[in-house]
């Protein structure tokens, strides 16, 4: 147990990021300073962290209640309930097959592309039921951007990649207005300085990390409200991963971010809240259903989880 804690802390410190400084500097929060001080301490006392909760009065972006996702007869996610808050980074963690990506793909109706996929329960986005028959999935995706597991730039120029979203959304056509959007998006994605002289070159010529940042730039070019990130760093090396994580910290001032990761340290480093998913094996059909085990502030999840399964997972005993 203790060893597990130490290892975890080492990796926190390696990145130079403070995993528990999660509130983006809200001085009115009395727990803030206390947390900061404790973060540098090598020994974690779970009891000492109690009360270090995140404020709950923040605007709720997604309100998920009793959500079930089915692929045909197979239930991939069972009874998930959670709230995603504005200008926070929410991480979904858990072993593979636990339904975290499936749930993420409900948030921008990407699951619509899978014919057999079916959703029951309630998923509200700013109070609107996303699966209401009047809701148009294309419109949803214009407001909720997505970054995928494998960098997937289009085989076009860097400029055309970033301009793609604004163009299909009719925000701008070729010209100075679009050039501005492209530049701003690339700046926000911390890629502008690297590519400003070669915007006409094919995006496939970029490195993997650059490609992923281009995909982030592409996603924020449509000025979305939320960014969904599906294991955005799993195909990248550690240095590129660090850059993306730094970038996410900068982005959460403007966007709300939901990130799926199976890298626990990453969740601890970047997120404000963490949802832990696990797998339930149905003995009679031998299928695996994902269940939401626990959802809380990241700090609590990693220091003093309420559920034993979460504790086993974050300490590396399982998964």
């Amino acid at each position, binding site marked *: 147990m203790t060893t597990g804690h130490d290892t975890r802390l080492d990796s926190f410190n390696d990145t130079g990021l403070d995993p528990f400084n999660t509130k983006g500097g809200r001085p009115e929060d009395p727990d803030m300073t206390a947390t900061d001080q404790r973060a540098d301490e090598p020994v974690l006392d779970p009891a000492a962290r109690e009360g270090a909760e995140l404020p709950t009065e923040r*605007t*709720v972006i997604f309100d998920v209640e009793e959500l079930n996702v089915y692929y045909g007869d197979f239930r991939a996610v069972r009874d998930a309930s959670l709230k995603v808050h504005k200008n926070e980074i929410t991480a979904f963690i858990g072993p593979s097959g636990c339904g975290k990506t499936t749930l993420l793909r409900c948030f921008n109706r990407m699951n619509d592309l899978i014919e057999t996929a079916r959703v029951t329960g309630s998923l509200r*986005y*700013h*109070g*609107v*039921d*996303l699966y*209401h028959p*009047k*809701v*148009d999935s*294309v*419109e*949803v995706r214009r*407001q909720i951007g997505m970054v995928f597991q494998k960098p997937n730039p289009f085989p076009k120029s860097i400029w055309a990649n970033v301009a793609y979203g604004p163009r299909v959304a009719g925000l701008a056509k070729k010209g100075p207005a679009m050039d501005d959007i492209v530049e701003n998006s690339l700046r926000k994605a911390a890629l502008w300085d690297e590519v400003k002289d070669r915007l006409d070159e094919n995006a496939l010529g970029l490195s993997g990390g650059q490609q992923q940042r281009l995909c982030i730039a592409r996603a924020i070019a449509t*000025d*979305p*409200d939320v960014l969904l990130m599906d294991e955005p760093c799993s195909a990248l090396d550690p240095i590129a991963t660090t850059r993306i994580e730094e970038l996410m910290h900068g982005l959460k001032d*403007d*966007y709300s971010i939901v990130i799926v990761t199976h890298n626990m340290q990453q969740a601890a480093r970047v997120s404000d809240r963490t949802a832990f998913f696990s797998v339930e094996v149905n003995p009679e059909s031998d299928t695996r259903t994902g269940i939401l085990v626990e959802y809380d502030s990241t700090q609590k999840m990693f220091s003093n989880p309420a559920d034993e399964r979460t504790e086993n997972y974050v300490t590396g005993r399982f998964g």
Partner: protein
Amino acid sequence: MNEAGSAELSIEALSGSPRRVRRERIISRAMFCTAFVSVVVSALIIYALFAEAWIFMRDVDWSATWGQIGWFPRRGIYDMPTLLVASLWTTAIAMVVAAPLGMGAAIYLSEYARPSHRAFFKPILEILAGIPSVVLGFFALLWLAPNVVAHIGGEGGRGSMLAAGIGVGILTIPLVASISEDAMAAVPKSLREASAGLGARRAVTTLRVVLPAAVSGLVASLIVAVSRALGETMVVFMAGGAADAAIKTYSPYDGSLTMPAAMASLASGTDQVVGEGLTFQSLFFVGLVLFMLTLGLNLIGDRFVARVREQY
């Protein structure tokens, strides 16, 4: 959107522009129509065949379709066995040519050829597949007849079912080769490695492991090739040794008409399909028989191909 702090959105904000939704629906319908063309074409083929063949079947004196001296449609004699025997002969001869050559080529390309050899031979086989059948007809009549058929008991100076059959066979080699090769490519590498790991030589692995595993694909290649050979028109029309009519014969050294060749000869030569009362309709009757036969074979072949896919 970001700066808007208010939590509630209206459903209209996510409904999408009605124009765009409508445009997408129109495009989707148009796409469906293009796909539906194939169904319409199939229905029209079946309708056309049945509509005219029905008149033939209703009005024909059925004794004229069986046990006659041959196929003389312009004189009202429609002896079907004449055409069926000729079709059987040319198809059988074609398979004798195409099955070993096509499968041999496929085995070589799939199991033996180095990548560089493959890259060289494969396109050439594809070119062979693209040779128009009139060219094969010409070749069968003016080269195969004097240079091959004349040496195996036939006459070199004219067409025959034998010459036409060899020509059709050459035409179907690439078909057999490509379906067989696909079937062998679908056999997992692990099977070959397991066999090689037990010390089996490549020939043994091929004969005892790969070919048995690929057998449904190989059968499919033969079935599809038989269907193709049955439907081949021009080679038999040009090199089959019979023009407008054919006397019934059981010897492949003679000339005769297969079903499609009989159809082509009925339609050619004159400006209109003319002759005795039901000549035009007989065209469709023969077409219907041919269609049913090839359709049946293709459906069976399809089953075998699907089985290959299911297995691996």
